[in-house]
């Protein structure tokens, strides 16, 4: 909420209090303190009331985390279902392959399309065009916003066919699905997806025409990478600085710190802050995007690596093109497997998995006993991993624009946070922005 700028409390001091940052998923606070021409302090404070999933997962049956952890985030439930399934299957020594693996990837493509279209059109584009929301944007650009909603809907349609509903799908289970999609339902997605791909290409063109601040911060990117595909469901954990490790070694390199001001945990990789999400995936796995998505990226003026966080909206649009392409590929090659799921009998052990949520790498680890009871669970959501870099981005914005009027600076700070499509519900959340100037 944009509260009015209060009177300066003392000579040379300016201060802004904003109740909550809008157009992010969840609630958090950002505190910025400026003394004259010196930036003193930036802190992103996530204080979404903690819901303590890792606590109540203990003692649950190993078949339950896919449904339970989906409830961490209504925006990316499939990511939670996929990371938990893969981790628990790893613990039980089962690998889901072939067409079942392809169907999981198709479901995930649906979530990418839906979540990215939501962010591009409803949450992020309004920043660049000077509107408070996608709904306000529609008053002047109705056809464009309608295209965005149509695109978003196709993503939801994919999730409905594969999962039964778009939020907290019911059809995902260990080993695969409760029931296979009907062929007619899958084929019926083809036409909408073809149109969605055209809409996505138009979206890339549209957002590439926005004005972007000229910044190129040097951040460490981390994403899954796979030899055969643009990684979504599996791969090794890679950074653009040469780290390439199996998912089981994730916790040896990534540390989370509990910061007092926040109910989310701050992560570092080998001691350094890093970021996950579209920019990281794109930089590490560009060569595996489909030819059409690569072409769209080049036409939009992107190189194979893009470091400007404000241009994440363009990369997100390119990933929508890819997700449509990939969904079409999977549907076209689909042949029903014999069974909807593989048996996953419990055995004592520990399993890890990372998958690529729309906003970045999502890590799950479970320890279960012989009866399949969960003894321990650990979840590292994407926004917690990027949090230090989000703060760095805000610092850069403030340092580079100390002369801006306070309300404009505040808007730019909020935009710097939204560049990362933070999901604060995932990280536990309440984004409250305060800029204090002395």
């Amino acid at each position, binding site marked *: 909420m944009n509260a009015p700028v209060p009177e300066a409390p003392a000579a040379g001091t300016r201060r802004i209090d904003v109740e909550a940052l*809008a*157009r992010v998923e969840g609630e958090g606070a950002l505190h910025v303190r400026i003394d004259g021409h010196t930036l003193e302090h930036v802190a992103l404070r996530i204080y979404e009331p903690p819901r303590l999933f890792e606590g109540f997962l203990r003692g649950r049956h190993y078949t339950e985390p896919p449904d339970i952890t989906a409830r961490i985030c209504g925006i990316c439930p499939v990511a939670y279902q996929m990371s938990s399934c893969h981790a628990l299957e790893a613990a039980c020594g089962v690998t889901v392959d072939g067409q079942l693996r392809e169907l999981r990837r198709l479901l995930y493509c649906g979530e990418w399309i839906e979540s990215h279209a939501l962010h591009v059109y409803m949450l992020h584009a309004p920043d660049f065009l000077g509107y408070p929301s996608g709904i306000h944007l529609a008053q002047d650009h109705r056809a464009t916003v309608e295209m965005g909603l149509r695109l978003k*809907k196709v993503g939801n349609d994919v999730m409905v066919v594969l999962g039964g509903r778009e939020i907290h799908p019911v059809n995902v289970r260990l080993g695969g699905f409760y*029931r296979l999609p009907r062929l007619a339902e899958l084929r019926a997605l083809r036409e909408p997806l073809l149109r969605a791909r055209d809409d996505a290409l138009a979206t890339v063109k549209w957002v590439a025409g926005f004005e972007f601040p000229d910044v190129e911060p040097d951040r460490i990117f981390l994403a899954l990478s796979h030899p055969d595909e643009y990684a979504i469901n599996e791969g090794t954990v890679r950074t653009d600085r040469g780290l390439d490790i199996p998912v089981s070694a994730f916790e040896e390199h990534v540390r989370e710190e509990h910061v007092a001001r926040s109910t989310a945990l701050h992560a570092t990789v080998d001691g350094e802050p890093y970021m996950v999400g579209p920019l990281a995936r794109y930089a590490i796995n560009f060569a595996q995007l489909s030819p059409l998505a690569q072409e769209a990226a080049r036409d939009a003026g992107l190189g194979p690596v893009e470091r400007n966080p404000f241009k994440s909206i363009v990369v997100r649009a390119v990933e929508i093109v890819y997700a449509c392409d990939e969904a079409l590929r999977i549907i076209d090659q689909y042949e029903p497997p014999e069974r909807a799921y593989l048996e996953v009998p419990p055995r004592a052990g520990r399993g890890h998995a990372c998958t690529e949520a729309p906003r970045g790498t999502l890590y799950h680890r479970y320890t279960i006993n012989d009866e399949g009871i969960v003894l*321990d669970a650990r979840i590292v959501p994407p926004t917690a991993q990027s949090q230090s870099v989000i703060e760095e981005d805000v610092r850069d914005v403030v340092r580079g624009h100390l002369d801006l009027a306070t309300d404009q600076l505040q808007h730019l700070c*909020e935009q710097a946070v939204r560049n990362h499509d933070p999901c604060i519900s995932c990280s536990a959340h309440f984004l409250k922005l305060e800029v204090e100037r002395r």
Partner: protein
Amino acid sequence: MAPLVSAVSRTADPFVRTGKRPTLAVWKFASCDGCQLTLLDCEDELLAVAGQIDIAYFLEASSATVEGPYDVSLVEGSITTAHDAKRIREIREMSGKLVTIGACATAGGIQALRNFAGPDGGPDVTAYAAAVYAHPEILDTLPTSTPISEHVFVDFELRGCPIDKHQLLEVVSATLAGRKPQIPNYSLCLECKRSGAVCVMVAHGQPCLGPATQAGCGALCPNFSRGCYGCFGPHEGPNMPALGDRFAELGVDADGWLRALRTYNAYAGPFRKEADHVERTRS
């Protein structure tokens, strides 16, 4: 979309007379954001709805906010902090009608498992917090997660984890029209039969909470060859012990029955009482 738009315009006379469109506010407490996202998932209806009402406060979607009072408030999430317990009272005061959306706001959500986590089966959050945080002592959280109705008067409670978007549109249009929302409170079984699904419990011997669960989702799980897991919460007056016996016959032990009862609507009366009974009689 037509029903909502026509209902709103037909019944918006008081607002038309005053030259004002009805105002809608959307609030979040402890939750996953999914139920408010349902509003944005009404892709075909969203712009039409926005044309009929003023979305005065909806932070997930808009940075433009209008100060209250509001004609209708939609509330997502449960109360888990002292600060939120105070905030919901303020929201009630500035809301003409207050509607809770989803299992968190209506029954405390999955985070209400803490309400039974103590050694005596009562509220305890310390063990959960220690499993997540290195310094649980600095967390500001209550030992309970409670539904909105334990704190303020609620005009209507919409069920579901998540809510169904058609039901949401019905509740918004009915509330603006000043009529009772047409939301069925019978069991899922009726809806399931009507959908033509095969009964997974009778035909396949799969445990299913459908006989105790309120309809509204369209009997999704049985249509995906799986038993209902109760995400819409208990319907009016379910026969829980009988269903528990049926689960036992199908090979579900007491722990399994407890887990089935204690998910997204664990704190809702009939599910809570049956789980309490199982725990008491077992020990």
